[in-house]
């Protein structure tokens, strides 16, 4: 029998016992909905975690320090890496070399220093951090009040909210547009001739000069992007990286520079290497290690996260599938009942020339149609559940005064896969009834009353 006639007959048969077949199809739909809802939760949470982490800027960043800086930092990874070059100083030359590596977007130092600012005549101790322009798209700036720096060399500042509350406990937002005075210690290199006897004075390599700089507050953020990973504390006052570099403010590793042969040559405590995508991290990280630096990224943590979510999805899928397994028993029951009811009809079909495979295909077609309709209704039902989960979560979060998030998501592949899975399960459930119907003895079937 041709496929179109087969589907026509199958649809006719399904319409015949409409209530029973609808209930069976609904059972499949509920099974598929349960599967879709479970998986949408898994996928949604995975998306949420991945998005949050990638927006943090940590997953496409490599933190580079001089190898002598932290022997134990990332040491395990170093042992498994190929042989590396001798330790290199993390200076301006190294920064240029790192920037020239393939798939590297940006290389910037971690400039942060403790200092004091003056606002409304009062002093406030704080930590200043330089912010690279490439971090502009990080999640930390997504919900900021005000705006990002107008330019890389703008004399502007972004405050971390807790620090802003210290400056203006009642109305931190009113700080936007206000001016503050940054007081800092500038490191000034001494002329070569005055540094003749290095051992004679602490100022053999450079001197420290107090300075002030006016900054306009343009924004307030909840958190610092990637803050504190390579430094000693969160920056509470963020300024453009280029401005931070021109300040030449004394940092904690300046004392170490005194012990070096060329103290006037500036070295970095750490550099952050931003790569184009998370997939480039491994290759760039290995190259940096071979160049003689210590490199560390959150790539391994990211991999583990994916494994955790894969297992999570699998478990959710298994629980979701249980309902579908129960629904498949409904299909078997419905089709076996149909054989009993249509025993004589099967006999007639065989007497009129239907081959065993025609009868088998007819029952498979009925199972497939129930699977298809069940799959479609299940996806729709699952989508409603997904919307309900997201709506409920948003309502709960808004009551907690937290921003709404999407905890469940149904991607297109899940829609297609759920319907295909529903049909596959229905066909599997139809195997026994279909072969039983095909094997029916036509003489016995025609005799049946």
């Amino acid at each position, binding site marked *: 029998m*041709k496929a179109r006639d087969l589907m026509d007959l199958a649809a006719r048969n399904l319409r015949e016992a409409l209530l029973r077949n609808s209930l069976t199809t609904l059972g499949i739909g509920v099974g598929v909905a349960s599967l879709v809802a479970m998986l949408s939760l898994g996928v949604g949470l995975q998306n949420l975690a991945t998005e949050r982490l990638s927006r943090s800027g940590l997953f496409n960043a490599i933190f580079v320090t001089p190898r002598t800086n932290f022997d134990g930092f990332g040491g395990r990874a170093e042992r498994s890496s190929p042989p590396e070059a001798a330790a290199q100083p993390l200076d301006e030359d190294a920064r240029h070399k790192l920037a020239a590596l393939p798939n590297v977007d940006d290389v910037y130092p971690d400039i942060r220093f403790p200092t004091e600012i003056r606002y409304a005549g009062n002093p406030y101790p704080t930590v200043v951090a330089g912010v690279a322009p490439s971090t502009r798209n990080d999640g930390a700036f997504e919900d900021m009040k005000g705006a990002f720096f107008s330019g890389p060399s703008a004399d502007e500042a972004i405050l971390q909210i807790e620090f802003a509350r210290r400056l203006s406990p009642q109305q931190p937002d009113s700080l936007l547009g206000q001016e503050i005075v940054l007081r800092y210690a500038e490191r000034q290199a001494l002329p070569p001739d005055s540094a003749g006897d290095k051992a004679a004075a602490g100022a053999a390599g450079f001197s420290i000069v107090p300075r002030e700089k006016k900054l306009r507050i343009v924004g307030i953020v909840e958190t610092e992007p990637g803050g504190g990973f390579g430094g000693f504390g969160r920056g509470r006052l963020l300024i453009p990286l280029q401005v931070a570099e021109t300040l030449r403010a004394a940092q904690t590793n300046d004392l170490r520079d005194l012990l070096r042969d060329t103290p006037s040559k500036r070295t970095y405590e750490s550099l952050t290497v931003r790569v184009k995508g998370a997939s480039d991290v491994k290759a760039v990280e290995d190259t940096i290690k071979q160049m003689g630096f210590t490199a560390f990224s959150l790539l391994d943590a990211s991999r583990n996260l994916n494994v955790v979510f894969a297992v999570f999805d699998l478990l959710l899928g298994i629980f979701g599938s249980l309902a579908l397994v129960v629904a498949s028993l409904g299909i078997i029951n419905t089709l076996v009942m149909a054989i009993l009811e249509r025993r004589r009809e099967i006999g007639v079909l*065989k007497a009129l*020339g239907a081959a065993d*495979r025609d009868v088998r295909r007819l029952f498979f077609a009925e199972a497939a149609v129930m699977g298809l309709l069940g799959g479609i209704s299940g996806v729709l039902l699952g989508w409603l559940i997904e919307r309900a989960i997201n709506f409920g979560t948003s309502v709960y979060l808004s009551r907690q005064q937290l921003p709404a998030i999407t905890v469940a998501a149904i991607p297109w592949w899940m829609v297609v896969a759920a319907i295909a899975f529903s049909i596959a399960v229905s066909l599997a459930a139809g195997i026994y009834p279909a072969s039983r119907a095909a094997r029916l003895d036509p003489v016995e079937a*025609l005799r049946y009353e």
Partner: protein
Amino acid sequence: MTSANIGNPGNGRIAIRTDHLARQYQMGSTLVRAVNDVTLSIPAGEFVALLGSSGSGKSTLLNLMAGLDRPSSGAIFAHERNLAEMNSDELAKHRSHTIGIVFQAFNLLPRMTLEENVELPLRLAEVERNERTARVFEAAERVRLTARLSHRPGELSGGEQQRAALARALVNRPTILLADEPTGNLDSATGDEIMLLLREINETLGMTIIMVTHERPRAERFAHRLILMGDGKILSDGGRA
């Protein structure tokens, strides 16, 4: 419908031939020999009545001829092709293309209209859609039922239902028509109508008709040849009295 449309019965050719045909089955501890060593030959175009009491084996023999059942031993040939050696797909083709079957209980599918019932064998034989309507009308016209094609079986009288079943049996243009008690569920007048139709089909189309019945007078009136069966054997085989 013209005789040219209904296959080619072939003058002098054999439509059905059996050779020491037997069909037996186990019923508890008893071995039932439903058909026991039957050898016969039915020429193409003949109208044969298989007579006998209940359990005589006539319906079993008809089922063997239809390819609905398989012999336990012996051979059964339809147009010299041994049904005993056919696989289930070949038997299905035999039922679809070589024979048409009419049952005592009509066996029309109740949820389908007459048109859909008559069309069913065409669907199974994978006849193109655009050809089906004409073939259905042609078969319905032969049994004079064109006006009732849109009705469901439940809306028709017994005679009309049997005529519809006859149209369904003819629609694939078989060469052999098998009828199992075709008048068994009908009153005398309606039964005669069906028998007249069968005779007309036999005479105008030259179709071989093998009819199982226990009504001897009717068989003598319409069939060319009467085969009397008892205990699975042929008791007598000859022309009408």
